[in-house]
């Protein structure tokens, strides 16, 4: 029985359905698991993603390519395959791709997490014969604290900086992590949060889909030469070290990312603080999820794929690693 998904220079490809999943090269038809830059790349002719992802994807790709949105669970026939998208819990609109052909079911997880997130539909386990799983944090050292505990830590950090008269600059992904942080902080405080333009735009798209987020103010809308002492500012990583941050004067910086679990990484990245908040599955969640899919074969991709595959093999499961373009670390 041929594999339903194979690795090609353009990325994962389904020969039966004639489509790629998250291709980095041009494709006739791309299915996009979620709209982060390393998964939703321009250059393909037609795109399929969830309805919730579609507005983000259209913004990213601009005019030109066809972007088709599908509801979670909607069955779509592509070639000889039936495809459906299922919640991955990674960010708003993120999906696992279920592919059924010739009586076999493959599920490509995309990025996913199992921890609670008020800004997106929770992960839904899907039974599969073969499960293609992400492995970004597939080492047992990566185990996450509860998000509400992390949110309380962020609040305590903000408060401490406020009392010291400093601004708090919290760096995070503009799409997903920022909104998750806003929603979590919104449960703890009524104090308004300032945001970078990129975060503001993404938050606006979240709000339009009915996701509740606390009130935010764009830094760009504030008068010049204003004091930022005591403010909390959410900004994308790309804004760090640019002239944009100078306006905040006396400031403390932090990064919210799963990588912050390791002290060495925390120090190397050069932020004053690291908060362990990830939109990826931690080690126990990866192991549990693989178990729940009931898959007889597992293919791991991204990050510690070799390590996860070997661990699974030693546990008596058929498993392998798919190499991708992206080795090393993504800022997750």
């Amino acid at each position: 029985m041929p594999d339903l998904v194979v690795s090609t220079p353009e990325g994962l490809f389904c020969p039966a359905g004639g489509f790629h999943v998250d291709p980095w090269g041009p494709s006739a038809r791309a299915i996009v698991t979620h709209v982060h830059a390393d998964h939703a790349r321009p250059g393909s002719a037609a795109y399929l993603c969830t309805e919730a992802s579609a507005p983000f994807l259209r913004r990213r790709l601009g005019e030109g390519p066809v972007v088709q949105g599908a509801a979670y669970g909607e069955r779509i026939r592509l070639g000889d395959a039936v495809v459906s998208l299922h919640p991955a819990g990674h960010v708003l609109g993120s999906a696992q791709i279920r592919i059924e052909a010739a009586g076999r079911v493959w599920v490509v997880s995309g990025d996913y997490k199992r921890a609670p997130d008020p800004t997106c539909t929770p992960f839904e386990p899907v039974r599969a014969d073969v499960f293609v799983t992400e492995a970004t944090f597939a080492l047992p050292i990566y185990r996450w604290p509860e998000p509400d505990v992390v949110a309380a830590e962020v609040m305590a950090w903000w408060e401490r900086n406020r009392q010291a008269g400093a601004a708090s600059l919290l760096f995070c992904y503009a799409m997903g992590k920022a909104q998750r942080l806003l929603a979590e902080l919104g449960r703890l405080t009524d104090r308004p949060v300032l945001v970078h333009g990129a975060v503001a735009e993404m938050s606006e798209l979240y709000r339009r889909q009915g996701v509740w987020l606390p009130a935010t103010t764009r830094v760009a809308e504030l008068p010049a030469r204003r004091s930022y002492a005591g403010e909390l500012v959410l900004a994308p990583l790309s804004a760090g070290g640019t002239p944009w941050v100078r306006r905040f004067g006396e400031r403390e910086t932090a990064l919210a990312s799963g990588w912050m679990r390791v002290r060495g990484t925390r120090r190397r990245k050069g932020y004053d603080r690291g908060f362990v908040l990830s939109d990826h599955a931690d080690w126990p969640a990866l192991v549990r999820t693989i178990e729940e899919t009931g898959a007889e074969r597992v293919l791991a991709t991204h990050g510690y794929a070799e390590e996860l595959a070997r661990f699974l093999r030693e546990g008596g499961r058929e498993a392998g690693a798919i190499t991708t373009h992206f080795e090393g670390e993504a800022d997750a």
Partner: protein
Amino acid sequence: MRAFARLYEELDRTTSTNAKVAAMAAYFRSAPPGDAAWALFFLTQRKIKRLLPTRVLWELTLEMTGVPAWLLEHCYAAVGDGAELVALLVDRPAGGPAAADLPLERWMEERVLPLKDMDLAAQAEAMRRCWSELDTLQILVLNKIITGEFRVGASATLAIRALAQVAGVPPQVMAHRVMGDWRPSADLFRGLLAPEPERRLDSHPYPFFLASPLEEDPASLGERGEWMAEWKWDGIRAQLVRRGGATYVWSRGEELVTERFPEIVAGATHLPEGTVLDGELLAFRGEALPFAMLQKRIGRQKLTPSILAAAPVAFMAYDLLEEGGEDLRGRPLSERRARLEALLARAAAPALRPSPVVSGAGWADLARVREEARARNVEGLMLKRLSSPYRTGRRRGDWWKWKIAPYTIDAVLVYAHPGHGRRATLFTDYTFAVWDQGELVPVAKAYSGLSDAEIAELDAWVRRHTRERFGPTRAVEPVQVFELAFEAVASSSRHRAGVAVRFPRILRWRKDKPAAEADTLESVKALLTVRA
């Protein structure tokens, strides 16, 4: 324990010296004296004997977590720190019932030190209990203490500065008060803060004065006549303390090494009461022997007569800090030097020798003499201002080390290993090879000398040009050439190349040079300096 762990984290987090001193001072002010004493003990880089090797903690971790051993190795590559690795595997990041916070002193006295007298099973049980009561950061700190690897991102000098602030005394005074061998206790800490310490311990050495590297022309120092030149010995810097009828030999790391050097102790019995010498421990037989010989001595658990005979040691004295119980550090070097020579002449102990003054009328003459350094197994010259007092710490201006230029070779990068600490997850440790009959033979490992930007660039290159993996180590395509500097080459049966280089470091990335033009093993062997 929580407060001490927080202090550890704060010191770890900031690179600002002032912030570090402020954090330590705040801790010393607020902590109970017994806790503060233990904190000072660790912050001044004192160590308790290792209670458990990291290996045992790892085995316990494997057993507790069910993580396979190979996966632990991969985790280690991502973490780069054994104590932290264990903490990240056995902690409960998702929380759990918090145990009461015990003071550091009680942790040390009741939980940590008793491990010494337990059997392995009891130790394992005790560690399990400790880990279950602490958060990730505290587990990390505890593991570091227990494995004798506690180090913190602040020098002892900064800790002393912080404590001096708290006590309201000059740092030099505090530096002297905290020297020597002491056991932490609340009383001891109170004594350190008291305006006059009750009693100076006989064993106390003085804080070392450290030289700075001379990067400019020595003529910039002014008149040659104002300076004294000596060889820069390649040994172990040490102070010899003779007080109360006993002898103490302190290494620069403030480690008491008296027992390693019986011939020095024998020689010191000829010194008058109340003498403190500053100098260098050297392997010496009529002339200085290579550092490798001294290493043979310090590496041994037991000093057998044959080792003592094979690697004899001398104390090359270059300063007299105390004579007849009087602190001479404020006197000019010229006076201290004269008194040193007279004192050693009276003692007439062959193991204690004055470090000879190197002559040379002008700077140019001296530069010529310096060229003999390599043949003499020394690192270059020391230049000391004759009018200078004996200062504390690394203060620029009066003591300069004027080293000879290192050897250099061009070598090819063949293996990359993940780094440690701040550099874990990056490939920062490298193995370099040179050509030997058409094959690349590893000759040196180096991990310093590149900028952060170069490290990042090389890291990305390594990931894309891996030929083979050996656990976390990558064999890479032999393409990148680096210029390496090192101090000496010695023949070595433990290295495949048959030679070992000393202090290798990266000078620059030779992107302009193809691998085929890297140096050969033959040319490296031509640099063999060691006659041993």
